[in-house]
Each structure stands twice: as C-alpha cells, then as structure tokens.
C-alpha cells in the first residue's frame, strides 16, 4: 500500500497540491479525474519522484519497481525498436521483449521507423510499449491515451488491463475522461484545486457522485460530450 500524508506542493506562492491523507491499495486500479490544473499531473509527478513536494511523506513506494509515463513522453530519434530496447538494456532478452511489447500496442510493423517521425498517437503507443516491456509493481500513467483516437484508446485500455492482470500491479492513471475512468479504474479520485474532493469506487463515484463539485464536473463533462456529439 502507498501511504501519502500531509503532502503539499507549492509553486509561485500557490498551493497546487494539498493532500492530508491518501492510501492507495496495492494491486488496485486508480483513476485520477479533474479539470486542467486540478493537480492530477502534480500528484503523479510527486509519486514518480520527478517533483519534490514541499512537505509531507510518501511511504510504500519503491522507485526501483515503479514505472511512470509522463504526459508528453520523449521518444528518441532512434528506431522504434531501439526506443523500446533502451529501457531493457540489462536484459538478455531485450529485443524479444521489446518486440512483444510493440506487438501488443500494434506498433510491431513500425520497428524500423524513426520514432521521432511518428504521429502523436503512434509515439504515445511506442512510449507505452517501452514502459510495459518491463514488469513494474506500480504503474503511474499521465493521460496514457490523450494523443490517440477512439480505436487507439480502446486498444491502449485493453493493453493496460492485460498488463495489470498479468503483473498484479498497482495502476494509477490520470484522464480527462470520466468514461475512461469508468472503463479502466476500480477506484476514482476526483481532484479540484489540488485537493481531493471525492474518492470511491469508480461505479459509485461516477454514477452517483455525492459531492456537489463532483456532480458539477460530471455534468459539465456530459454537456461537453453532447455538444461535441451534436456538432
């Protein structure tokens, strides 16, 4: 279990994350939802260790067994295959594992392509394959399918669910889409202004939110979806 206590991140005199307590159960799938600037990325970055908090503690998270996919992962100007292999350098089966990971995300036919010339969605899938080529106990993903289309999103979600099942890992991801959270997460955390407004099982929180702020966010999201659909 990952235990967060009195966590605070301040930037330019503004508190952007303030979490008095948060417990993340091992082996569960957590979805972080909220508007832009709600603290989803900050929380993931603090958990990943790429951002140091101004106060507080995180216990039960071993950086050696953690994998983290940033919102805009860097793809190197090497081939797609080499991009994945570089994350597995110490493994004698690096190339085989890299190919298997690329196969899963549907990028096996791109292995000789230069990764930095791919489209945003393709690059995101390569970055995901690079992360999933290795077994992690905790997986932190910042909007793992933000650059992909609906079909790509379905494929990524399925890959993540398969990975979670076969590795029995803890999955924490952020998304702008409550629908994706419902499909992928068992637990959902709604963040606003760097604070947890509501947290609970995905089904309960997204279908019958208790907090008015969560209801308002979900209503806004639904209206946006309807507007996009009718447009």
């Amino acid at each position: 279990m990952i235990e967060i206590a009195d966590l605070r991140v301040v930037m330019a005199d503004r508190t952007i994350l303030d979490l008095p307590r948060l417990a993340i159960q091992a082996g569960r799938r957590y979805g972080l939802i909220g508007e832009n600037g709600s603290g989803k990325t900050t929380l993931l970055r603090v958990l990943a260790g790429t951002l140091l908090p101004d106060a507080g503690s995180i216990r039960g998270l071993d950086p050696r067994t953690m994998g983290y996919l940033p919102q805009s992962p860097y793809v190197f100007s090497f081939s797609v295959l080499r991009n994945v292999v570089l994350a597995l350098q110490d493994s004698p089966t690096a190339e085989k594992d890299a190919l298997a990971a690329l196969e899963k995300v549907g990028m096996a036919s791109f292995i000789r392509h230069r990764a930095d010339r791919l489209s945003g969605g393709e690059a995101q899938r390569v970055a995901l394959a690079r992360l999933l080529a290795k077994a992690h106990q905790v997986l932190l993903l910042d909007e793992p399918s933000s650059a992909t289309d609906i079909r790509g999103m379905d494929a990524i979600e399925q890959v993540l669910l398969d990975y979670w099942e076969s590795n029995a890992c803890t999955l924490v991801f952020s998304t702008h889409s409550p629908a994706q959270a419902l499909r992928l997460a068992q637990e959902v955390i709604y963040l606003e202004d760097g604070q947890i407004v509501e947290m609970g099982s995905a089904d309960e929180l997204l279908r019958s939110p208790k907090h008015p702020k969560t209801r308002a966010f979900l209503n806004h999201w639904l209206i946006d979806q309807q507007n996009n659909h009718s447009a």
Partner: protein
Amino acid sequence: MIDRILDLFFGPNPEFRQIVAVTLRMSLFSTLVSTLLGVPLGVLIGANEFRAKPLVSRLVDTLMGIPPVVGGLVVFLLLSRSGPLGSLKLLYTVTAMVIAQVLLITPIITGMASNIVSIRAPSIRETCHGLGIPPGRRLWYTILECRVPFISIVLAGFGRAIAEVGAVQMVGGNIQFKTRTMTTAIMMQSNMGYFDLAVALGFVLLIISFTINSLVHLIQDRERRD
C-alpha cells in the same frame, strides 16, 4: 581576381600559403579545445538543475558577448613578460592566439550547447526516470539527442575563430611567417593600401565560410532525410 588567387596559392611566394596554414591551424586547434571544454560544460549546465544555475547562465551569456579586444587584452596581460604566465614566453606565438580564441569561443559553445540541452533535458530526464534509466545513461542519451545541433554549434565556433581579428592581432602580433593570419593580413594590407591582396584574402575567407555553412546545411539536410 581568380588569376590573382591562383597565383597566391600556387605561385613562387610562400607567404600566402603560410598565412592560410597558420589561420587554419589556429582556428582548428582553438575550436577543438573550445569544443572539448564547452560542450561538456554546456551539457552539465543545461541538463542539471542547481541553485546557482541562473547565475552561471548569466555569467556564460556575459562571456559570450565579450569583445575580442578585451579577451585579447586579458591574455596579453597574462602572457606578457611581467604577467603571471610571462615565464612561459608564449606571447606572439600561435599558442597565445589559440589561448585567446579559446577564451572567446568556449563561452559561445558552452552557452549554445547549454541552451540546446536545456530545451530537451527536462523531458528526457522525466521519461528516463519513469523507465528507471540511470543518470549516467540518461546524460548520454541527452548528448545523443543533441548531436546535430552540437555539430552546428562547433562549426559556428570555427566560423567565429577563423573570422576573429582583434584578440589575434593583440597576442599574435601579426608577425610575418609566424603569427600572421588571414584577418590580420587583410587589416595590414588595407592599412598599407595594398587592396589586391586584402581582397584576395577576403575572397578566400568567404570561400571557407561558405564551405562551413554548406557543411552545416548538408548535415542538417541529411538528418531531416534519414
């Protein structure tokens, strides 16, 4: 003009060939030393976050704009007979010219390399951290990712070295068959009213500059195509 240049290159008088040789030797060597100093320094500054970084960056930016005569004066004072390094007897040698150029070019290479690295480093750092790639290898990947701009930066440094006149004149002394370079020779010939040789030398400098720029474009085009 072409006849004049060909005559200078292949004619009986060795002075012109000697001037070009000194210029190339000095520029190549000072660029090499500046690259060996400037690129690693730029990578270290650009790829890392530390408290003194803004101050260091400001210092490098300031040194990037140091007037050549000021750089030349510093080296002159260091190497002059009464200076702290006077005993080395390096003043009015090609070595002194290289030292002066290194002083001028290293901050340029450092600053440009640091800027390039600092654009890519945060994203590479975060991605590598998430993949569990150790810091040493992370730095190597950062250098690899910046390889093309680095080549352009080094060639820009060479361009600066070959065109420099103020510092080279001060510490080299423009001595015939010893420290005379194309730029100092152009200045001297113009002052003496011998514009023929000055124009021919200028023409050769332009050709070298054109070759360097073509090389930079060639590398960039190849990178875009691959």
